[in-house]
Structures are given as structure tokens and as C-alpha cells.
């Protein structure tokens, strides 16, 4: 289709508008995120001195070479496995919950959403310690399961405890975007789907799920990515034995005081995540 002069002008106008709409946040992110990030990039090519500071004169790829070591591979594999399990559980639990919220009266709906967030306005460290007590030997959960004849539960300092903690920490990150996308579903489309496919599961798979895919994707990213980088939860609930990528990076920065390795690891992680996010989004987009 050939564009007329008026349409061309209109499109140029639109581009200009879009640019100015994006400008404040774009400028902010460039100045207060991209620019500082360059510092980290520079550090990743530098060298740790004998006092643990970073020498900016000696450039090399040593920090990147270190990422090939088996320990890093172990940590990455464990992180991916735990993060995937966490994301799947969050998705399965959050989807019906978000659906439930979206189908309430506006007031109830908002109360429910805020009720989801309120626990997180306490303090994350305190919440993690509370989980430590809940999951401990002879703790409330164990006492309960014993009382109903299921026997003692001793899962503190295990992978299960880490997953429970991660699901707890990131569940709202799944609920919010899911809710946002479920809420804007056009009811008429679902009705049409019912007429077309009859069964509920069919309608869900063919109509509802594709339409709410942006929420699913956004939620998955918001859960998966921070789970990979989680630090406090695996340390406290996994008893420091289930090192995840986040804890490993913290170790590099704040225990080994090896900033170049911490920086290089962060960069590789960010690049991989960014690329997979883009791919994930594209594939999600195609489903629409």
C-alpha cells in the first residue's frame, strides 16, 4: 500500500510522539543504569590485586576463563533446575488465582491483589527466618503433619525448602502480570470459544491461554530471572549448601573480593538472559 503525503506526515508525527513519550525514561535508564553498567563491564576485564581491589591497568580475559570451571557449571545447572521448578509451580498456582481475582467485583478484586502484596511489606529477611521456623524440626508444620498422622516433616536445609522459599518470594511477581492480562480478556471471545469448542479445556487452550500469553511470559520472566539470582533464600533455607548463581556472584564480590569474576559472571548471565528473553517473547508473540 502506498502511503499518501498526509499519511506519511501522520506517521512521522507518531514516531516523534513515541520518541518523546519514551524520552524521559530512556534518558533516565541511560544515565542511571547503562552508564553505571559500563563500569561493571570494564571491571570484568580487569585484574584482582593481592589486596582484593581491582587494577584497571592490566586488561585480560582471565575472569571470563574462570567461568568454564566445573564449580560454575554445577551452580548454573542447580540454579536453572530450581528456577524452572519455582516458575512452573508459581504459574500453576498463580493462574487460577489471578483468574479468580479478575472475576470478582472491582472492590473485592483490589482487596485481593493488595492482600497478596501485604505480606511483602514486612521484611524479606524476617519472612525467610519465619520460614526457617515453620519448616524446622518440631516446628509448626511438622507438628501439624504429625498430629494428622503424616509423620515428621524435616525439610529445612534442603532443595525443597529452597523451592518453597522461592515460590513464596516470587509468587506475586507471577500473579500481578497474569491478573493484568486476564482482566482485559474480552468475554465475548470466550463465549464464542465455548460455542466453537464446547469443552472448557479446549477453550482454555485455544482461546484463553493464547490471549493471556503476554501475562504468562511476563510473569515467568519476573519469577525465573530473580530466582536464578536469588541469594538470601537459598542461603537461609538451603543452609548454604544449595549455592545458586546469585549466592555465587555475591561470594565473588563480597567474600573472595574478586570483582572481575563477579562482573564477568554477571555479564554472561545478563547476556544469556536477555537473549533468551527476546527469543521467549518472539515465540510467545507468534502464538498470538
Amino acid at each position, binding site marked *: 500500500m502506498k502511503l499518501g503525503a498526509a499519511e506519511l506526515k501522520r506517521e512521522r508525527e507518531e514516531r516523534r510522539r513515541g520518541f518523546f513519550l519514551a524520552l524521559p525514561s530512556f*534518558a*533516565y535508564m541511560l*544515565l*542511571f543504569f547503562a552508564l553505571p553498567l559500563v563500569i561493571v563491564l570494564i571491571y570484568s576485564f580487569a585484574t*584482582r590485586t*593481592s*589486596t*582484593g*581491589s581491582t587494577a584497571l591497568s592490566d586488561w585480560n580475559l582471565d575472569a571470563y576463563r574462570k567461568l568454564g*570451571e*566445573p*564449580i560454575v557449571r*554445577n*551452580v548454573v545447572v542447580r540454579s536453572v533446575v530450581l528456577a524452572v521448578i519455582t516458575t512452573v509451580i508459581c504459574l500453576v498456582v498463580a493462574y487460577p488465582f489471578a483468574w479468580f481475582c479478575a472475576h470478582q467485583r472491582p472492590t473485592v478484586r483490589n482487596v485481593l491483589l493488595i492482600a497478596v502484596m501485604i505480606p511483602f511489606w514486612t521484611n524479606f529477611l524476617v519472612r525467610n*527466618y519465619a520460614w*526457617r521456623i515453620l519448616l*524446622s*524440626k*518440631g516446628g509448626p508444620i511438622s507438628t501439624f503433619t504429625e498430629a494428622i498422622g503424616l509423620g515428621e516433616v524435616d525439610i*529445612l*536445609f534442603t532443595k525443597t525448602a529452597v523451592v518453597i522459599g522461592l515460590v513464596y518470594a516470587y509468587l506475586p511477581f507471577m500473579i500481578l502480570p497474569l491478573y493484568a492480562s486476564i482482566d482485559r480478556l474480552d468475554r465475548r471471545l470466550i463465549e464464542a470459544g465455548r460455542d466453537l469448542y464446547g469443552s472448557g479445556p479446549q477453550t482454555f487452550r485455544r482461546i484463553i491461554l493464547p490471549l493471556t500469553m503476554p501475562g504468562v511470559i511476563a510473569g515467568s520472566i519476573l519469577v525465573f530471572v530473580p530466582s536464578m539470582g536469588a541469594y538470601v533464600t537459598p*542461603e537461609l533455607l538451603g*543452609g*548454604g*549448601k544449595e*549455592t545458586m548463581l546469585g549466592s*555465587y556472584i555475591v*561470594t*565473588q*564480590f*563480597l*567474600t*573472595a*573480593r*574478586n570483582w572481575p*569474576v563477579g562482573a564477568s559472571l554477571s555479564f554472561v548471565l545478563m547476556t544469556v538472559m536477555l537473549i533468551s528473553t527476546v527469543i521467549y517473547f518472539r515465540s510467545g508473540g507468534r502464538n498470538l
Partner: protein
Amino acid sequence: MRTTTLRLAGVAVAGAMILAACGGDSSSDDAAAEEPAAEETAAEETAAEETAAEETGSKCATGQVDGDLYLYNWSEYIDPELKTAFEEQYGVAVIEDNYDSNEAMQPIVAAGNSGYDVIVPSDYMVSIMIEEGSLQALQLDAIPNMANLDPVFYPAPYDPTGEYTAAYQWGTTGLGVDLTVLGDDTPRTWGLVFDPELSANFGGNITLLNDPRETIGAALKYLGYSLNTTSMEELDEAKALVADAVARIAAFDSDQYDELLVSGQTQLAHGYSGNMLYGIYEAENPDDYTYFVPDEGGTIWTDNMALPFDAPHPCTAHTFINFILDAENGAALTNWNLYGSPNAASEPFIDAEVLENEIVYPADRSKLEFITNTGDFETNFSDAFSEAKG
């Protein structure tokens, strides 16, 4: 102050300027909320003093103050009454922030502009910060109470000239034990952790510190090596021991080990003397627990008062150090913290209960070792620890 800032901000092109300037303003506001009148002048004085100090190397007299004290300390490490006493005696406010590790504090101070007057780094961190030029040499004639320090800690091996730091508290790292498991004559050995048979008695209810130097160090001591080894073979041996122990322990924990121990969640805990004693005091049956440094030896450590290179109120800082080194104040510190006092003059004022406690003041200190910075070898410790954990 605000108008000048804003006018300049208008001139400046970078958005960083505006927001950064806001940062400066608001932090002043914070303090101003407490002392509205004094704040602005104090800030200006500070700036003036700083330049003066740089140009002429200004001298501080004993007891001189040049503004409020910004203290960057470990948490709950100073008796609040000592702070109040200092505030009343010198008419300045003490504003305290806390850190939870040397490694978190160091980059903040080293980056400059931290705004703190006194920091309290541990031994090995002192040597690192001296080497990196992050500490300011003390004006010793402004701190006459320096003479109160026990010669063991002054000058200390990590500050050989005694120019930069004054010891604050000292302690050891060892094992807290539930005596109901092996009885009162529980062998005082790291074998409780590293010997499979001995450690089996605790049925997996063991915590170790989540710290490479401490935990690998314990294994090194068990093997009879120095905890500052730079031998890869020795380190590998220690790593294998820790890796073997991982299956027998509940957790690596540096924060809650004492509470886990006295609440019955664990029965053997690797940790610091004062915290352990504190936990034991809280226990329902304190007699069921004890703490010792195993006979093979262990870590001795100190925390030390020092001035960041750009401390805004150096004279107040010197006065504060002198205040803490006072005999009675030093004793108050130990009575409150339950850690050893490096202050020889304090001894008469320390509670007998604390002074005679073997947990605080172990009789045999010959096998205790400071952790030192092993330089380029340092990363091997943290790698070994990560690998041991799997």
C-alpha cells in the same frame, strides 16, 4: 545551601547533577530534623575543615570535637549507654550505621565520600585497608589512652607500626557444644566435625560458619597446618575434609548458629565466642552448653577502630577513640558485648563473671592464629570452599 545548589543545577547539563544534588540536600535534611540549627553550620565547617586538613594537616587536640560523630560499626557492638555518655560529655550526636561483613564495609569506605568518621574493621581487613590507603594515620598525641592497650594488641601484627588502628574487642572462633550428647568430657577437638565417627554422634545436627577462611581454616587446624597456608596441597586436603563433612552437617550458617544450638535444632555449632556465650546465657539450661577453641588451635580475631582516609570529622573521631580506650569505658564495652577487652587498664572494671569466663578469656592462647590476607592466594580459599560445598 539549597538555593545555590539549585541554581548550579540549572546550569549543569547532566541530570546526574540534579539528582545527585538532591541527594546531598536530603541527607542534610535528615540530620537537620534532629538538630535544625546546628546542622548547616556543621556541614559548612566540615567542608572548611576538610580543605584545611588537606592543605596544612590540621592537628587535633585531646578531647577536641569538630562535628557529630558518624560511626560505621558492626551491629549491637556498642553499649548504647556509652554512646549517650559520649554525646553528653562532648555535646555532639553519635549517628551509627551498621554493616554485617568487612567485605561489604570496605568498598563503601574505599570508594570515598562515605561520610563516616570511625569504622571498625577486623584484623586482616585492617592490613588490606592500610595497604590500599583507605585509612588515615592516627594523631597519637590526641589519643593518650592508647597507652591503656595490652601490648599483645598494640602494636598488632596487622598494623605493625600501630599508626592506624586501636583495638576495640577481641574474640575467638571455636565450637559451641550441646553437652548432653557426649557429656561433660566432650573431647575438645575439631574432630567433632571432621572425624566421621566422632561427628556421627551429632546425627547431622551441626552447623559450620558460612565463611571460607573460618571453615577451611578449621579443617587446616585439624590437620595441624597454619590457617594462613599458601600451600595448594594443604588447602586441597582441607577442602576434601570439608567436602566430606558436608553430608554430616545441617547447614553453613554465620548468623543464627547460637540460636539454633540453644533451641535444640542443632547440637554442635561453629561460631564466634561472644555470640555463643550470649546464646548460652539465653538458653533454658545454660549448663548444658559450652564453647571452646579445640586443642588443635583456632582463630583469634580483633575488631579495630580506624579513621577512613576522608573522615569528615577527624577530631571528633580521635576523641571518640580516646573515649573508648578509657579504662572504665573499655570495661563497659566488654561487660556488654561479652567479648575480650584489648584494654589492659580495663581489667579491674570488668565483671568477674566475664573476666573469669574461659569462653571469653581462654587460658591457653598459644595455638590461636590471626587470619591474614594471603594476597593472590586468597581466591583459592573461596574457590575451595565453593567446591567443597558442591
